[in-house]
């Protein structure tokens, strides 16, 4: 009986999944090129209009980096899980001793790596085209790190939840991109400062993670005198941590309730 031998650990299987996820992801060339380049292209186009003074470049680049990691986590992960559900990846895994937790560890590795790559690309464009200064203060870099992590985790979980709404791989990009684009409008990415928006849109935007991620990144890329431009007149770092943390918890609960292995009704 094979039952006597221990099955591989959850975490080592997660690492194996992560390696395979990355390998598959980076071999899909068009996917990589288009997923990655879209935020950079938008940054180039909008930046050319918006950025007149250095501080505008700093603030805009920070918001675009926020939007960039939401595209790799929320949109990217959501599409990849919808695809796994449709092409049989999840069904096959469900028939093996691989635990669901290891699958998600693998996806986490994929999202962290692709999000970091997105940040690097966006910062490179910002630096080359808009002369954006990168933060050197360790305190600011630490802020960047925790906002990045919380933002990526919260949005990954939400992308996983929303992927369950997509009936097929074909509809997944539409289902995920609509909220993403709306959020970019009302979270201070495309339209900045946020105070230019009507109150109702400001409040709606403040419910979701993107606004807080962008605000956190603005605190990293702009000096503290510019926090007066924010809606609250300050960077609100504590509140950012609170809102993003709450979304992580809510996202996890929603994922456990909505996750499906396949598209058909069991």
């Amino acid at each position: 009986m094979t039952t006597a031998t221990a099955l591989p650990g959850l975490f080592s299987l997660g690492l194996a999944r992560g390696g395979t996820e990355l390998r598959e992801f980076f071999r899909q060339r068009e996917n990589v090129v288009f997923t990655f380049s879209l935020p950079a292209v938008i940054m180039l186009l909008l930046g050319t209009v918006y950025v007149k003074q250095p501080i505008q470049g700093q603030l805009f680049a920070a918001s675009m980096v926020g939007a960039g990691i939401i595209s790799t986590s929320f949109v990217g992960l959501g599409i990849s899980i919808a695809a796994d559900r449709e092409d049989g990846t999840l069904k096959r895994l469900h028939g093996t001793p691989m635990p669901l937790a290891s699958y998600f560890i693998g996806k986490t590795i994929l999202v962290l790596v692709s999000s970091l790559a997105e940040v690097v690309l966006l910062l490179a464009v910002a630096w080359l085209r808009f002369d954006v200064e990168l933060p050197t203060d360790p305190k600011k870099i630490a802020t960047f790190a925790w906002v990045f992590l919380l933002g990526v985790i919260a949005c990954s979980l939400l992308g996983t939840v929303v992927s369950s709404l997509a009936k097929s791989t074909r509809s997944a990009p539409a289902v995920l991109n609509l909220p993403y684009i709306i959020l970019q409008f009302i979270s201070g990415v495309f339209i900045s400062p946020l105070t230019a928006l009507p109150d109702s849109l400001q409040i709606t935007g403040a419910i979701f993670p993107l606004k807080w991620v962008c605000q956190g990144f603005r605190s990293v890329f702009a000096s503290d005198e510019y926090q007066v431009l924010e809606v609250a007149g300050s960077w609100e770092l504590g509140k950012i941590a609170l809102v993003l943390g709450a979304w992580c918890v809510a996202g996890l609960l929603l994922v456990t309730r909505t996750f499906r292995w396949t598209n058909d009704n069991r």
Partner: protein
Amino acid sequence: MNAIRVRGLRKAYKDHQAVDGVDLDVERGEVFAVLGPNGAGKTTTVEILEGHRRRDAGEVHVLGDDPGKAGRTWRSRIGIVLQTATDAAELTVAESVRHFAKYYADPRQPDEVIELVGLTEKAKSRVRTLSGGQRRRLDVALGIIGRPELVFLDEPTTGFDPEARRHFWTLIRKLAAEGTTILLTTHYLDEAEALADRVAVLAKGRIVAEGTPATLGGRHSADATVRWTDDRGPHEISTSEPTKVIAELAKHGELAELTVSRPTLEDVYLELIA
């Protein structure tokens, strides 16, 4: 203990009763085929046994556990061969087999499995470049990499050309010879006849007959048909004693085009599902 034991299994979808009281026993080491037309409930039944689908009622034991509640250890003892998956498209054959081997405590050697399913020449090819038949053989490789005690094959050769089917059958026979229990669904009668120790015919969610391919539906004890031709044309006699009939006829000399036939599996099957 049987590999599979099912009593009173029922499953309904919105508009119809897909499985309507199925009882099933599959012994260890047996190749068991579930025959039935499309929509008979074959896939639903198998997916419940695999733990992929919930049941409405009934008692189900697969390798001693309830598939609806069984955990990782149980899943490491079964092998599921998927039919329609297009996953792992960007991996190579060898990469995907090696990756799945990592899930198990005591997997087979990936290279040996690739050899067994006849994909050695394709080991370094991306999965998306495989033909339909090659893709299904990879599915078998991934289904057996964990050294399963029981393998599920749901209509494994649908869409295969005749040569590919023969190769596939050889592969299944190899697995069976190693002592693996195999549950196979098919709507090809020759496949059931070629591979299965026992068959069950499923129609409209119920098992309407069960037995060895040779005895299914009373096939072995049914009347034989003796046919021959003489100056007056072709003749046909239905009899329970064909030897006696032929002995009688032989007194008149050589019989042209003499045949003795029993109902084919197809005759019995068509009768059963009608």
